[in-house]
């Protein structure tokens, strides 16, 4: 299990600015959370779809980083695409997100992400991401 320093490094400057933090590690996969604040607000009292997407994407990268680290790999991660499904409005309460690596190849990872609020069984948004893993020069 990664220590706190390592889990902190899964969060980009963008993610920290959005207010995303590590909530827990569940079965090796980081669970991220973001509280409700003006920074993530779209319609009054509801999450902006872009903020929810940012959380989903961050959770996708965090899960992939954790998995790669466990395998001793540290490639650059480059986004190829993301498809987000918005299932219900994100209300003014904390939101959580966690991802599953559907397939980890040598160059491409396919990642499924879910975001929820009160009940993990009722996600408010899901995403599928393809991520390119580029070996670092040198």
């Amino acid at each position, binding site marked *: 299990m990664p220590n706190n320093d390592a889990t902190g490094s899964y969060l980009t400057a963008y993610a920290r600015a959005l207010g995303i933090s590590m909530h827990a590690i569940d079965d090796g996969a980081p669970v991220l959370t973001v509280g409700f604040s003006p920074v993530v607000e779209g319609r009054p009292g*509801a999450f902006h*779809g872009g903020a929810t997407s940012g959380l989903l994407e961050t959770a996708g990268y965090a899960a992939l980083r954790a998995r790669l680290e466990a395998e001793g790999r540290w490639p650059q991660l480059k*986004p190829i695409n993301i498809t987000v499904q918005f299932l219900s409005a994100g209300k003014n309460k904390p939101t959580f997100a966690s991802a599953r690596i559907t397939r980890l190849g040598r160059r491409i990872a396919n990642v499924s992400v879910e975001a929820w609020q009160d009940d993990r069984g009722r996600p408010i948004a899901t995403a599928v991401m393809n991520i390119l893993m580029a070996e670092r020069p040198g």
Partner: protein
Amino acid sequence: MSAPLPPFDPQQAAQFFFNHGHSGWLGLRYASHGADWVELELPWREDLLGEEDRHMLASGPIISLLDMASGMSIWTARKVFTPIATLDLRVDYQRPARERSAVLGRVECYRFTRSAAFVRGIAHDGDAGDPVATMAGVFMTIARDPRLAQQ
């Protein structure tokens, strides 16, 4: 009797939309619009980097930019502001945005029905012919404000 409302004006609406909340935090700005499209600008922000060791914008703000431009293109095409919700949004990233460069999101609402609106667009950093990302999305109209429905 009140006069009919003037058609939705994205430039005017931007003053309200972008002075608070997530869009305000990102610093989104109105750039231009046509009959069924809107272009918004996401200024460069040093604190929105996607990777520590690479000086490039995170992809999250690009989704927010395109999501917001999508909504505004729908209201512009419909000529009226109605509550909508994003159903599905897909973004394909072609290349990183240039460092210290603002990113523009241009989205057109190419078709709408009573309940759905279909949008497509690009994000670019100056040359619309060389996009940073392309996107496609579907939005649904919300019959009633969900906050009122809870009461």
